[in-house]
């Protein structure tokens, strides 16, 4: 006796249809899963057997073979538990096989028969939708996520519920489709917590409005990290299409918070500097998105930039340029989107005392050079805004609390709105200033283009009708500090 269910395996961010075939035949009772199943998938045997028993259903005392087709596709993870269980039940006619038509299934079983959520449900739901299926059996926690793909989710808490549904005995409770309730957004730290630091705040605002990459340099303890963490709070919320894109990536990585499936706040990823290259750009035998892709449409924050291994930093140059990471394997090439805004902090020297009037730097010239050499010019060139944050004086810390994130975000949103329909030109005087600066300051051709971009953002924030000298001058003040600049 043969029965079939449909599920999906993840290849990168895409779902591939996998047919789960269960075949029962006479002979010594046995259970085998074939079709390139990895270890987690092989262990499904035990979970499925216990789950079926716990749901008060019969484990067929036959020779059971489960095939995951196409057999050449490597299958990973525990999401195959539910489709395998349903295929076995359908093959033993405990579930009417014809009722499975039009359904896909995904989910991990507990030994008690309960259904656990798995990653990548959004991608699986999209795969099912594109494959012409209309319903997806999944854990109740994943139902809202599956609904984002425009497919009808069948949320089940327990294997028994799924069986009851398929037998037509009971319909599962409907899910509310409004995926994100009001005020359910993830809380971002507020910019109002930062006292003083007007210049760095201004740089953050410019970075948010123009999607500029930002480097904060300065001695330790000046609030660089605190400032950087407040960037997502002033970024505009993601438009629906981008939100869906980000949600898909986070779903595959299993990072979606329960109950709030749609990611609307730009993500903020802060990998530690001990992270491996694969952890940052993605990889693995069956490649998974790395931090750079998880920061897609959001912020990738590298604290202590110079401490990162150089090859990890160099690997970021491709996504900074193309907005995507391609990972080549013998089996094929995968492309992960990675259009992130890079924010980094660094000290001005290895001992950290440079830039701090109260401390004397003890670094030798060679050590200092080695520290700075870790950052290639090519990487430093990607930062449009460089801010040196000096140690604030005690008086500054007593300053009144400043504007909160809300107010800044309103301005940023206005600037972004203007950037779409506005063709800004530089005034003659602004052009003159830019040319003079190129002669007078250490400013490369690339640096000039960077300054021009930032000047445009400053003009957009000001709501100006053209890019004036004041905007160019401000942009120039955020160019690469001389101590990091070209020698």
């Amino acid at each position, binding site marked *: 006796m043969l029965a079939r269910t449909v599920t999906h395996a993840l290849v990168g961010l895409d779902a591939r249809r996998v047919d789960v075939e269960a075949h029962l035949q006479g002979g010594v009772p046995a259970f085998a899963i074939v079709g390139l199943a990895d270890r987690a998938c092989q262990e499904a045997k035990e979970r499925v057997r216990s789950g079926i028993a716990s749901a008060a259903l019969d484990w067929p005392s036959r020779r059971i073979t489960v095939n995951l087709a196409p057999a050449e596709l490597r299958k990973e993870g525990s999401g195959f538990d539910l489709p395998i269980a349903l295929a076995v039940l359908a093959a033993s006619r405990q579930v009417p096989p014809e009722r499975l038509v039009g359904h896909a299934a995904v989910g991990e079983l507990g030994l008690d028969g309960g259904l656990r959520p798995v990653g990548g449900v959004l991608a699986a739901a999209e795969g099912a939708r594109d494959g012409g299926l209309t319903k997806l059996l999944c854990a109740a926690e994943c139902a809202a996520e599956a609904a984002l793909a425009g497919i009808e989710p069948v949320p089940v808490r327990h294997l028994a519920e799924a069986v009851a549904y398929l037998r037509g005995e009971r319909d599962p409770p409907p899910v509310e489709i409004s995926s994100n309730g009001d005020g359910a957004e993830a809380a971002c730290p507020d910019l109002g917590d930062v006292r*003083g*630091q*007007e*210049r760095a*705040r*201004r740089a953050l605002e410019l970075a948010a409005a123009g999607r500029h990459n930002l480097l904060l*340099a*300065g001695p330790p303890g000046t609030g660089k990290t605190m400032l950087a963490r407040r960037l997502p709070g002033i970024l505009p919320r993601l438009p629906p299409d981008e939100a869906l894109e980000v949600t898909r990536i986070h779903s595959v990585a299993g990072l979606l918070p329960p109950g709030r499936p749609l990611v609307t706040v730009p993500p903020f990823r802060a990998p530690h500097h001990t992270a491996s290259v694969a952890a940052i750009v993605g990889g693995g035998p069956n490649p998974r998105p790395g931090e750079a892709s998880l920061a897609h449409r959001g912020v990738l924050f590298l604290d202590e930039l110079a401490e990162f291994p150089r090859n990890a930093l160099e690997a970021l140059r491709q996504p900074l340029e193309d907005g995507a990471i391609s990972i080549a394997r013998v089996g094929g090439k995968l492309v992960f989107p990675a259009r992130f805004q890079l924010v980094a902090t660094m000290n*001005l020297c290895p001992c950290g005392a*440079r*830039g701090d*009037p109260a401390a*004397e730097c003890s*670094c*030798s*010239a060679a050590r*200092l*050079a080695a520290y700075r050499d870790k950052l290639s010019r090519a990487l430093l060139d990607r930062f449009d805004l460089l*801010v*040196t*944050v*000096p140690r*604030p*004086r005690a*008086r*500054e810390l007593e*300053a009144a609390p400043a504007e909160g994130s809300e107010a800044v975000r309103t301005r940023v949103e206005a600037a972004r709105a203007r950037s779409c329909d506005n063709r800004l030109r530089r005034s003659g005087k602004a052009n003159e*200033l830019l040319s*003079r*600066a190129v002669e*007078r*300051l250490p400013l490369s051709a690339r640096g000039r283009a960077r300054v021009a971009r930032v000047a445009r953002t*400053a003009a957009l924030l*000001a709501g100006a009708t053209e890019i004036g000298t*004041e905007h160019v*001058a*401000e942009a*120039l*003040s*955020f160019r690469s*500090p*001389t*101590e990091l600049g*070209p*020698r």
Partner: protein
Amino acid sequence: MSDLALAAFAAETGAHVVEEPRERRFERFRRRFDAERYLARLASQGYRFLGRSDPGFPPLLRELHDTPPGLFLRGSANVELLAEPAVAIVGARSCSSYGGQVARVLGRDLSAAGLVVVSGMARGVDGEAHRGALEAGGATVAVLGCGVDRDYPAVHRHLARGICESGLVVSEYAPGVEPAPWRFPARNRIIAGLAAATVIVEARERSGALITADFALEAGREVFAVPGEITSSLSAGTNALLRLGATPLTRVGDVLEALGVEPAQAMSLELGDHAVAVLAALGEEPAGADQLGRVTGLDAAAVATALTELELAGAVAETEGLYRGVRPPD
């Protein structure tokens, strides 16, 4: 052409040679040395050679008791540049931001007054002095302690290119000679020898810059030292020089007066209202942009704009996020 043979012999043997050695080896070398071909190859690489017997050889350098056989030159400037009144600015490689700024301002203002700035293209004070001179649009001379073809240290490749555009990179060592520790003191005698006055900006107690000062004193040239904080180890060398009788340098005019040079016309600054306010707020102490904003009541964007204006006018310099007024009291 015996100067060239001597220089080429020194390069081949890796020795320091100023007198014709009475060795068979040198005789043999001279016999097989083809000066024409050597010069042609040098020219094809873009280098020149100025022998000490050449009438264009800088007279001040000829006064040394161990005048080098000649100088290899790289860069577009004429040989006459080396004979013009020059000031050497030298100091610590790992200088403080204050030292770097003083070197830059001195380089700029001395160059603006028409003097040639000579230094060693090392990190720190040397590099800043060259940069200052280039900023003022002046010609500057870098003396290397290795083959004239080397950009040493490598971080100054860009700077070397800038120097070559209007000035000269010179060395007594032929192209291909590797840098070696013992060559740098020898190089310092040329720096001191080319200059009518030597300024030490910052130096530790046993700094190479003090060797340059010794050479300058030996040659009877003026030596200036920039006073520093008595607690800073970076000022130990310069302050010791002052105690021994070096002239303290407190303003650019000190050097100009000693050499009898007219100071350059002060740059007329046409600054906007914001820039004037920010400049006024910038007191003795360096200040961060936030602090300036608080004193002047301007917002961060306006302060940034004003600071760029001041920086372009050369009235303010930034290091490590702190701004300081750089027009020294004249």
